[in-house]
C-alpha cells in the first residue's frame, strides 16, 4: 500500500487558494452563492455562523449540505411525525437518522433496509442513472455493517407507447440489471407503472436490504481523537460538481478545462469488491465508524462523521488533507473535490493500531485506500489543501444545522372538483360479453400485464436464498439455512389514489405493501418510504406532501410498523406540471420458517376459493377507470387499518398452520385480475360463482364485485378438507369470508357471465411487453 505521502497529487493546479485567512481578510469578496442554490438569507446565516464570509470551499460544503436533497429543509418538519407517532416496539435497533434503519428479526440477526430515488439522473441517462441508483442504495446498506442481500426496483414511467418511454424504460431496466446482477444481488421484486403524469419525469426508486449480526451494527461516527480517517474505493473524479465548477470559474477564472462529466458512470465491479472488502473489514472489527459517499461526497462524509461524534459525546473534530485524495482528474480544485459525487467510495475511521490490517484487506481486494485525515478533539472540521487551510467550521453547522422551512401549503382549489368527478357516471360493462372484454383488456394493460420481459433481465437467484420473487405478492429470502428464518419485502404506491386524496393514498400504499407481505405468510414489521412529489415551493404540492406524511405516520402507528428510514424526492415535474404525489412504501416482514411461505399460484384442482374481506362500490382511481375511460376522479378506496391487521393475522395463521395452498392480495384490477394472475401462474383455471353475500355488498352488480378495488381483501385457495377449519378461523375473528368458487379446468369462468380459456388470457397478459419493447 502506498504511503500517504507518495499519494500526494504532485501537480498542483495553478490556482489562487481562497484560504480561511484570506476570507477573513477580504470580507467584501462576493461569492456566487446564488448560482449554488444558496438563498441570500442562508448566506447571511453562514456568515453569522462563521463570523466572516465563507471561503469558496466552505461555501461549496454548505451549499450541498444545505440543499433540499441533503438537508430535507422542506420536509423535515413533516417527517418528524414518523418519530413522534412511532409505535412503541422493541425490535427497532436503529431508527431514522442513520444511513438506514435496523430491525431485530430474531436470533442474533438484524436486518437493514431502505429505499431511495434516482429519478432525475435516470431521465437524463437511463442506464447509468438507474445503475448508480442501485449502487448508492446498496452502499447505504453496507454502511450499516450489513451484507447487502437483495434489491427491489419500484419504477414509474410515462405512457407505455410514448416514444420517450421507449428511450427510458429499456435503459433503466438494463441499468438496474447490469449493476445489480454484477453485484451478485438478487432482485426480488419491484413495480412498473405507466401514467402520463410521469412522462418527462420517470420515477426510479431502488430498495436494498442487508443482514448482519446484531452485535455488528456500524454507525457513522468519527470517535476517538488520533484515529485515522481513511478514504477507500474509487478515485475521485469530477462527477456531479456542476455547482462547484460555477464557483471555481466565477471566482478564479484561470482557463482550466471546462468539461466536467454531465453523467455519473457506475462501476459495479468496483462496488462488488468494495462490498467484499468492507465485509472482511467489519468481520475483523477494524472500523470505529464508517460512512458511504453519496450525494455531497466528501462534504457529507467528513462533516457527518465529525458531527455525529460531537453530537453524542461532545468530543470530536477532524483534520483532513484534501490533497491526499486520490484523483481521477488531476485538474480538480479543492471545491470540486469536496463536492464530487464520484461513485463507489467509502470513508472509515480506524484506530492507528488497526490501519495496517485495514490496508492489508484493501490490498487483498485491490481496493485503493488512503489516509486522508485524523480525528481531533478541536470541535472543528479543518480541511487543508497543499498546506493551506480552506475549511474551518463546526461540522454540526454543516451537517445538522441547515435551514428548516415551514413552507406554506394549502389544499388545492381543484381538489373538491376532482373528488366530485366520481366514476359513477362512466359507462360500465353490463353483459357477460362486455365483462369478458374488460377482463382481457385489463389483463393486457401495461400496468397489469405480465412483466416477464423486464424481470428476465434481473438475476433473482444469486446467493441461493430467494424463496419468492417476481410475480409473488412479496419477495422472500431465507436468512438462515438451519432455522429457515426469513424475511419478506413488498413495495407499493398508487399515485392515482394519492392524487385523489394524499392522506388516504399514502395509507393505501402502506396497507397494500403490508397486505402483500402477510399474503406470503410473513409478519409485517417495519417500513421504509420514498416520497416522490413535485416542487415544495408550490403550496398545493406541499399540501399533498403534508397530507401524505400525516397519513403514513398515522397508519404506521395503528399497524405497529415504524418508519425506519426513507427518502424524499421533490421537484418531480415537467415544466409546471407536477407528477401525481407518489409515496412508495416498502414493508419488511419476518417469517419463522420460509418453507411455510404461501405462493399466489392456483396449483391444485379442486381447491376452494375464498374471498376474504368486504367489497364495496369503489372504483375511484381504479385501473378500470384509468384504462377504459382515461378517467381519474372521485375518492380512492376507504382504508380500514384494523381490518388490514385482522386480514394479515388470518393470512399468517393460515400459512403457519398449513391451511392455505395459495393467497393473493386484491388491488389494481380487483378480484378478477387477482384470479387471472393466480390461475395463469399455476396453470389451473377457476370457476367463480359470485355468492349473494358478495353481490349484496355491491348492489348486485357483478361488474363491481369483479373490478372494485376495495382495500383489505385477499383471495385464497384452500384444500377442501381445510375449508371448514379455515373459515372458522375467519369467522371467530370476525373477518368476512365468502366462498367464491373452485380451482378447476382450463379457463377462468364466472358463472352465467363469461368464460375465458387460460390460453387466451395468457396471450393477452404476456403479449403486451414483448410487443411494446421486444
Amino acid at each position, binding site marked *: 500500500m502506498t504511503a500517504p505521502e507518495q499519494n500526494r497529487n504532485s501537480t498542483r493546479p495553478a490556482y489562487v487558494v481562497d484560504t480561511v485567512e484570506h476570507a477573513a481578510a477580504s470580507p467584501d469578496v462576493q461569492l456566487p452563492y446564488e448560482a449554488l442554490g444558496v438563498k441570500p438569507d442562508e448566506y447571511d446565516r453562514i456568515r453569522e455562523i462563521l463570523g466572516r464570509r465563507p471561503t469558496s470551499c466552505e461555501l461549496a460544503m454548505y451549499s450541498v449540505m444545505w440543499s433540499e436533497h441533503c438537508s430535507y429543509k422542506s420536509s423535515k418538519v413533516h417527517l418528524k411525525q414518523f418519530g413522534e407517532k412511532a409505535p412503541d416496539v422493541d425490535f427497532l435497533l436503529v431508527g431514522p437518522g442513520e444511513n438506514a434503519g435496523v430491525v431485530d428479526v430474531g436470533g442474533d440477526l438484524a436486518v437493514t433496509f431502505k429505499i431511495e430515488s434516482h429519478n432525475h439522473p435516470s431521465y437524463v441517462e437511463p442506464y447509468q442513472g438507474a445503475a448508480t441508483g442501485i449502487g448508492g442504495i446498496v452502499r447505504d446498506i453496507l454502511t450499516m455493517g450489513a451484507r447487502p442481500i437483495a434489491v427491489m426496483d419500484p419504477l414509474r414511467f410515462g405512457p407505455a407507447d410514448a416514444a420517450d418511454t421507449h428511450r427510458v424504460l429499456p435503459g433503466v431496466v438494463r441499468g438496474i440489471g447490469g449493476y445489480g446482477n454484477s453485484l451478485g444481488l438478487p432482485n426480488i421484486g419491484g413495480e412498473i407503472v405507466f401514467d402520463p403524469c410521469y412522462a418527462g419525469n420517470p420515477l426510479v426508486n431502488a430498495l436494498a436490504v442487508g443482514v448482519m449480526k446484531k452485535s455488528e451494527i456500524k454507525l457513522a461516527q468519527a470517535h476517538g481523537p488520533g484515529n485515522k480517517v481513511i478514504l477507500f474505493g474509487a478515485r475521485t*473524479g469530477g462527477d456531479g460538481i456542476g455547482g462547484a465548477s460555477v464557483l471555481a470559474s466565477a471566482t478564479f477564472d484561470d482557463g482550466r478545462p471546462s*468539461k466536467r*462529466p454531465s453523467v*455519473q*458512470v457506475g*462501476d459495479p465491479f*468496483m462496488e462488488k469488491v468494495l462490498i467484499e472488502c468492507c465485509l472482511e473489514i467489519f468481520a475483523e472489527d477494524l472500523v470505529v465508524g464508517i460512512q458511504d459517499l453519496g450525494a455531497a461526497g466528501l462534504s457529507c462524509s467528513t462533516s457527518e462523521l465529525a458531527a455525529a461524534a460531537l453530537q453524542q459525546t461532545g468530543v470530536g473534530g477532524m483534520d483532513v488533507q484534501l490533497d491526499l485524495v486520490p484523483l481521477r482528474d488531476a485538474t480538480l480544485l479543492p471545491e470540486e473535490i469536496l463536492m464530487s459525487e464520484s461513485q463507489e467510495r467509502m470513508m472509515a475511521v480506524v484506530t492507528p493500531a488497526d490501519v495496517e490490517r485495514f490496508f492489508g484487506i484493501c490490498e487483498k481486494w485491490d481496493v485503493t485506500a488512503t489516509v486522508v485525515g485524523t480525528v481531533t478533539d478541536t470541535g472543528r472540521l479543518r480541511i487543508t489543501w497543499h498546506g493551506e487551510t480552506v475549511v474551518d467550521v463546526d461540522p454540526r453547522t454543516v451537517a445538522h444545522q441547515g435551514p428548516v422551512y415551514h413552507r406554506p401549503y394549502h389544499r388545492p382549489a381543484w381538489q373538491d372538483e376532482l373528488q366530485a368527478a366520481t366514476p359513477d357516471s362512466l359507462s360500465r360493462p353490463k353483459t357477460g360479453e362486455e365483462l369478458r372484454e374488460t377482463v382481457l383488456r385489463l389483463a393486457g394493460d401495461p400496468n397489469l400485464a405480465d412483466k416477464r420481459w423486464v424481470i428476465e433481465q434481473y438475476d433473482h437467484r444469486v446467493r441461493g436464498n430467494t424463496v419468492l420473487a417476481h410475480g409473488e405478492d412479496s419477495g422472500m429470502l431465507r436468512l438462515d439455512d438451519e432455522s429457515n428464518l426469513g424475511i419478506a419485502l413488498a413495495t407499493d404506491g398508487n399515485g392515482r389514489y394519492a392524487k385523489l386524496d394524499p392522506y388516504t393514498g399514502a395509507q393505501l400504499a402502506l396497507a397494500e405493501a403490508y397486505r402483500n407481505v402477510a399474503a406470503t405468510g410473513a409478519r409485517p414489521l417495519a417500513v421504509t418510504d420514498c416520497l416522490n412529489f413535485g416542487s415544495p415551493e408550490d403550496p398545493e404540492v406541499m399540501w399533498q406532501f403534508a397530507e401524505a406524511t400525516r397519513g403514513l405516520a398515522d397508519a404506521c402507528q395503528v399497524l405497529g410498523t415504524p418508519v425506519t428510514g426513507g427518502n424524499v424526492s421533490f421537484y418531480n415535474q415537467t415544466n409546471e406540471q407536477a407528477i401525481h404525489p407518489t409515496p412508495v412504501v416498502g414493508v419488511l416482514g419476518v417469517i419463522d420458517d420460509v418453507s411455510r411461505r404461501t405462493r399466489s399460484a392456483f396449483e391444485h384442482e379442486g381447491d376452494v376459493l375464498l374471498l376474504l374481506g368486504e367489497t364495496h362500490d369503489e372504483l375511484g382511481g381504479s385501473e378500470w377507470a384509468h384504462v377504459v375511460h382515461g378517467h381519474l376522479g372521485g375518492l380512492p378506496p376507504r382504508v380500514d387499518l384494523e381490518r388490514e391487521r385482522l386480514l394479515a393475522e388470518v393470512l399468517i395463521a393460515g400459512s403457519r398452520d398449513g391451511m392455505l395452498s395459495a393467497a393473493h392480495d386484491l388491488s389494481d384490477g380487483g378480484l378478477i385480475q387477482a384470479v387471472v394472475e393466480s390461475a395463469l401462474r399455476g396453470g389451473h383455471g377457476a370457476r367463480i360463482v359470485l355468492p349473494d353475500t358478495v353481490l349484496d355488498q355491491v348492489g348486485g352488480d357483478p361488474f363491481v364485485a369483479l373490478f372494485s378495488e376495495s382495500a383489505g381483501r385477499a383471495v385464497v385457495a384452500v384444500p377442501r378438507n381445510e375449508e371448514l377449519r379455515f373459515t372458522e378461523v375467519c369467522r371467530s375473528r370476525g373477518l368476512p369470508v365468502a366462498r367464491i368458487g373452485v380451482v378447476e379446468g382450463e379457463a377462468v369462468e364466472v358463472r352465467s357471465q363469461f368464460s375465458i380459456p387460460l390460453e387466451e388470457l395468457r396471450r393477452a397478459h404476456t403479449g403486451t411487453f414483448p410487443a411494446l419493447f421486444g
Partner: protein
Amino acid sequence: MARVVVDVMLKPEILDPQGQAVQRALPRLGFDGIVDVRQGKRFEIELDGPADEAALARAREIADKLLANTVIEQYAVRFDPAEADRVTEPAAG
C-alpha cells in the same frame, strides 16, 4: 458500395470502468508502463451507393441516433481505412 468506420468512445471526462479494468490487469500480465487505457466501440458499416459525402453524412446520422449515446459518448466517422489499419477484409462478393 461505401464502407464506413464509426469509432465511438466515452467522452474523456466520463469514467471508463472497462478501460480501467484492462489497465489494472496489465501489470499482472507483465506489461508495465501503460499509462492509460480507454475502451470503446468500432463499427464497420457497408452502405449502398457511392462512397461520397452523402454516405458519410448518412453514417454520421446513424452514429448520432443509434451507435453512440451522445450524453456520454462521442464518435468519429470515416471511410474504410487504408490497408494498414484494416481489421477485417471486406466481405467477399
